[in-house]
């Protein structure tokens, strides 16, 4: 029996399972570090976007608009092919963490900004009236409340972030998509390779997406 999904092709994939496992682990590692970076950038730039300080708000806009309106692929190519011309050569793992992290940091900062802006102005005033400084009021009063608002969109961003690490396949990233693709182009068993790869992404992303929609529903009930 032949065809794109022939049994022997699946057997070959199972024999070479470690190729996929390696890619899977690499994807998770890049995703976790990129997520950490994106969250830090998201909170920093989200807070900046709501500050009284006009320059701060402008910096936020430049970052967000620039990142959201250029393709991730170009940003990755810039880090991988562009920076070496400036004498900066980054390992591909760092390219992934930086590229995906900075890109999604922009989206996350929008979610954080919206969360902060949804908090009634009276909260900040109450904190000020008790002697809080801006930073302390943000940390103890505003951000914990904004977190509840921002959690569903942030979780959706995590899903996009994980899927978007697959862009690294275009610069020989070593993550799941690249491993699957290189295995498939050697063996020519594309069918099983992409199905398994898709399922592996689904295994991580689907629970997160379901979690996000549960959070959203809970928010609606509370509101």
């Amino acid at each position, binding site marked *: 029996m032949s065809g794109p999904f022939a049994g022997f092709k699946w057997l070959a994939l199972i024999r070479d399972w470690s190729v996929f496992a390696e890619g899977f682990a690499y994807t998770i590692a890049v995703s976790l570090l990129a997520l950490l970076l994106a969250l830090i950038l998201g909170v920093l730039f989200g807070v900046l976007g709501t500050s009284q300080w006009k320059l701060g708000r402008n910096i936020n806009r430049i970052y967000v608009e620039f990142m959201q309106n250029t393709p991730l692929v170009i940003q990755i190519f810039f880090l991988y092919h562009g920076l070496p011309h400036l004498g900066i050569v980054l390992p591909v793992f760092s390219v992934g963490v930086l590229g995906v992290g900075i890109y999604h940091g922009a989206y996350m900062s929008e979610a954080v900004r919206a969360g902060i802006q949804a908090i*009634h102005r*009276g*909260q900040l*005033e*109450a*904190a*000020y*009236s*008790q*002697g*809080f*400084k801006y930073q*302390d009021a943000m940390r*103890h*009063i505003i951000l*914990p*409340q904004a977190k*509840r608002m921002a959690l569903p969109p942030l979780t959706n961003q995590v899903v996009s972030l994980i899927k978007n690490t697959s862009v690294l396949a275009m610069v020989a990233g070593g993550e799941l998509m690249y491993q699957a693709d290189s295995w498939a182009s050697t063996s020519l068993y594309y069918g099983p390779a992409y199905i398994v790869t898709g399922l592996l992404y689904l295994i991580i992303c689907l629970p997160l997406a379901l979690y996000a929609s549960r959070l959203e529903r809970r928010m609606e009930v509370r509101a």
Partner: protein
Amino acid sequence: MIRLEGIQKHFGANHVLKDINLTVASGEKLVVIGPSGSGKSTLIRCMNLLETPSAGKVIVDGVDLTAPKAPIEKVRESVAMVFQQFNLYPHKTVLENLTLAPILIKKVPKAEAEKSGLAFLEKVGLKDKANSYPSQLSGGQQQRVAIARALNMKPQVMLFDEPTSALDPEMIQEVLDVMVDLAKDGITMVVVTHEMGFARQVADRVIFMDEGRILEEGNPDHFFVNPENNRTKLFLSKIIRAH
């Protein structure tokens, strides 16, 4: 205690406060009345610099808050404010609302802040709600918690910005009772309100504002019995008929 000197406040083209000069003595109970839009909320919010005056000085306990690098946060620790919309911290329990600022800002030990917090909750009749969240309380209860939160800072001055205006009628009295009770202690109080009964009962002095100016001031007996200014008379006749 609090001195306002030549305060002007503009919001864009709106001239909200026009050359306000006012001194609040230590221990005084001052009630500010006036029609909405008269600038009375802006005035009280200038006293802790939630609004920055466009010109003039705000001097609290000898400290000029309008000076560059003034220790505004430090002064706010002793000038507590109660808001129309309560502004309790919804993600914190009632007791945490009372202890958060004392612990973080005044560096009061947690056990001590909780002990005094519970005592103030008892004072406002809500000790049994210590572990509830603000959303589980009625408006009147929330405002009493907000008063207890202000008290737990052990302030020298309490500013009340229309504390009963957002409440359902049946809940106004429970809040006023707490404020009357509070007025018996030596604390300085500045109260923006439409509650004339409260003003008569506790005020040492009443000021009437309209269009950004203080038009009349006096002790409540003079004020409510023999108002001199025509606009004061008109305002009082309207508001007393309404009650």
